[in-house]
């Protein structure tokens, strides 16, 4: 089995900030999540200290708005997706006390709808992804009491499908990314008993295709990002042994650009920080030697989560 070329990936992530190519320009609106993916990958590989924390912090605070929410980059609008990423970055750096937690919590609780669901921002797009963002973020801030958690859980339950999976909204098809969001939110809310573990576990382990990779829905191509979405869900419901871990490990390693660093969706495709993070995080869940363990629900290193909740 090939190896994870950690030094290459570290160099790749460090180089991202200096790029001036079109891809970088096209993704500037989600830089907050990009930063979270890059920094978490660095932490899992044990190289977080090589990033310029001070510069990141200065930039991060420039992205906070009067509402309390964070935007994906300076000059863009606030959104719950980037508010979670910002809080996760602060958690990585043990800097959660540097923000006005009440204000961030107020922004998020203001997005909860009558039926318990969450909008992504003031424009009202509702999706269970945002339920995860809200619950994960407020839990990290220890402000879950600011929302109606019972209703939030009920809404997620209403998105459960015939195959045990979850969709974006009631009636939405099961999708591994969405399943992570719903299972993760239920795990953090202490409501995993709502999940039909055997039914969902079987559906999830059927995502593994002969190449060893995982797809996100039946009859679809495998993609490294599902190494995280599927795997973390399987870990949370204790069914991860139902897949072939060695084959998946091999698939992720095959998606590396061993020359220039970074990981792609499938072997020989172009790399990006999103798939680099999901590849590294997936390998961490597979207990790849040399990587630090990641928490399947909060998507942060285990020691970061334990520091927040047990100290």
């Amino acid at each position, binding site marked *: 089995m090939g190896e994870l070329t950690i030094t290459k990936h570290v160099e790749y992530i460090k180089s991202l900030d200096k790029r001036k190519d079109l891809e970088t320009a096209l993704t500037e609106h989600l830089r907050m999540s990009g930063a979270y993916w890059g920094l978490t990958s660095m932490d899992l590989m044990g190289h977080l200290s090589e990033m310029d924390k001070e510069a990141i912090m200065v930039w991060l605070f420039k992205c906070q708005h009067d509402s309390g929410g964070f935007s994906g980059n300076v000059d863009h609008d606030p959104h719950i997706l980037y508010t979670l990423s910002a809080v996760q970055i602060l958690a990585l750096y043990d800097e959660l006390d540097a923000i006005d937690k009440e204000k961030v919590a107020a922004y998020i609780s203001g997005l909860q709808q009558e039926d318990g669901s969450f909008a992504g921002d003031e424009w009202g797009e509702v999706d269970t992804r945002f339920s995860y963002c809200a619950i994960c973020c407020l839990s990290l801030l220890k402000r879950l009491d600011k929302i109606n958690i019972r209703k939030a859980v009920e809404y997620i339950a209403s998105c459960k499908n015939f195959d045990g999976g979850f969709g974006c909204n009631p009636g939405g098809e099961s999708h591994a990314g969405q399943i992570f969001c719903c299972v993760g939110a239920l795990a953090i809310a202490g409501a995993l008993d709502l999940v039909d573990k055997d039914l969902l576990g079987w559906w999830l382990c059927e995502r*593994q295709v002969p190449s060893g990779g995982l797809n996100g829905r*039946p009859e679809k191509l495998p993609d490294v990002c599902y190494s995280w979405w599927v795997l973390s869900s399987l870990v949370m419901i204790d069914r991860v042994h139902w897949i072939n871990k060695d084959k998946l490990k091999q698939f992720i390693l095959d998606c590396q650009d061993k020359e220039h660093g970074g990981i792609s*969706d499938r072997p020989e495709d172009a790399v990006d920080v999103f798939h680099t993070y999901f590849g590294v995080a997936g390998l961490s869940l597979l207990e790849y030697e040399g990587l630090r363990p990641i928490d399947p*629900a909060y998507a942060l290193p285990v020691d970061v989560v334990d520091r927040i909740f047990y100290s």
Partner: protein
Amino acid sequence: MHGRPRVTQTCDPARQKHEEEKAAKFQALLRQVLHNHRHRIFSKEALLQNAKLLELNPELYTAWNYRKVAVTHLLESQLDEAIRKSIVDNELEVVERALMRNYKSYGAWHHRKWVLHFGLSNLDKEYRLLDKLLTSDARNFHGWAYRRFLAGISKATEEQELQYTIKKINENFSNYSAWHSRSTLLSKQLQNNIIEKDTWLKVLTEEYDLVQQAFFTEPDDQSGWFYLLWLLSQTVFPSRPFVTGFWPPNGHSNLFDPNVPSMANCNILIFFSLPVCGVNSETVSMSSSSEGLNSEFKVSWISITDDSQFSKGWRAELTDCNKCLEAGMSLTLNVQVGAKPGITSRHGPLLGVHNLTVNIELGSSSCSAPEKHYSRITWPEECKQTSKFEDSPNDIFGCPSLPLQRHLEPLSEWQEKTLTNQINTCRELLELENDSKWAMLMLARLLVAYDQFASSSEHGMDEVQQLYKRLLEVDPTHQYYYNEQLSLIRFHQITVDLHESSEHFWRSDQTQNLWVRFNHLSLSKLGYFERLTGVQNLDLSKNKLQSLEGIEMLQFLVNLDVSNNHLTSITALRPVSHLPKLQALNIKWNEIGKHMIDKNRYLFPTVLNNSAKKHLKNNLNKEEGPVHWEVYEIFGRMLVLRQLDIHGNPISENEAFRSNLLLAVPSLVWLDAENVSTE
């Protein structure tokens, strides 16, 4: 990047320059649009710049926000209906161009829905456009979501939408999205009482016929099989909970002895098929016909998993029995589960009402009070003694027979016919496609379902075992799953007639304890715990267990041996921490401490999921090196644990762990071979 081939990065400088220029141009346009947004500039030019930008990158959510602000502003000052309509139509065109660039753009789809809410658009046109999209990409879940949205605002009936799913399924049997949609629409019709219960059976029968065509056409395609699995769950497994067992068994006695702490309270246990809440003295009535006593008992019910609202097991403690009874007297209680409505699972209320009779006797039990000085027990595996148990197995369970009762409703004629049909269909398919994994798996599940409800048990189990063994060969990727199914069948076979042979019973020479031994059987999954309720000493050593889920049902366990298994973390012992009488636990030679990832971390309440009790957190001893919070969360609950054998796990070498453990479990006397009592 999704689906984009990797290009060598050492491209020529000219190309790189060209790329950087493109990026700079895009950047300039983006800055301009963001500037217009910040300064609320809604000129024609500004809107055009924005549209151009979104065509280049539909993912720019702030640019969509700008359009919403602008459109709201423009519509506010415009009363002319034709102009208002043209403003809205223009937005739909912008979205259309954006979707052509990326039809998976969340922002673009949301903008379209937002625009439609003005009620100025032609919905037929929307349906036509959508149909085009779902023809070119039949699985696009944004498209399907948009169809649900349109159905909502155009008040389409479920029947119309069901027709559409049929159309898509007939175009391609492996359209999972369409099957999914069908299950949702049918469930909704059932829930809203549009389909009556009798019609539902007819509907299900038709669905079976439909899906059969699918898997006969494409036996390797998952879509039809997952749908069939759902139909099966609608046919035999009620989502409503039912009672699976009682302790003591119906008509049997419950001895108590106020002089023996472990027997001072009378326990009544009820087990359900699904976790339920709402078990209390209202929903479970208890009355006594004996004279001179209060005819109505008030007792408190607690869930055996004390920290969750929903539980499969509930325990009543009758604490004031000694006030009611004098030595030699006995009391007969009539218990009715479901006397009043209120017991419910996450999915529905209790099925039926269940009655049982319990005798309570004030006994002089044969058990003696626990010794002050606890002597280390020897585990069965460590004993040289080979003789097996020769007494009556009844002694094991403290009652004349094992509480094995089938509380399930027998199959209806329709169910029986449906299951038989499906079993035959799968067998037919297997004759055509010998190695069809899905046909084998489905047949195995159908046979298990049939066996569970059939009046004569066992006839299909050999076939099921054969099927899973073949699946192990055909689909080795899922070997753990198939082995777990085999383990469950094995465990079912062992426990179903347990009281009829003494094969698994053993009496210790040292302590005279009666043991039930299921050691060395390659078990990887357990079940049917309600059959073992009264067991006090259980040997599960030398198996392949990764999980002890369900063992909390064995509320009378005193000694438990799970050494030489595959338990991977302290948190895997969570079910054990619900055993109130557990004194000795053997977890030697497992894998605790070997793994970085804890897959049980979220399966029970802790501060990680905002539901742990505060005192545990306060107990953490930070001065004792790295904190093992699991020690407090798990071992800290084993209040009468006297002996823990943990040697052979990587964590047992850890000094911080050991010192945390001693703090967490003050009752502990023996840790491996070491006497750790402070007295």
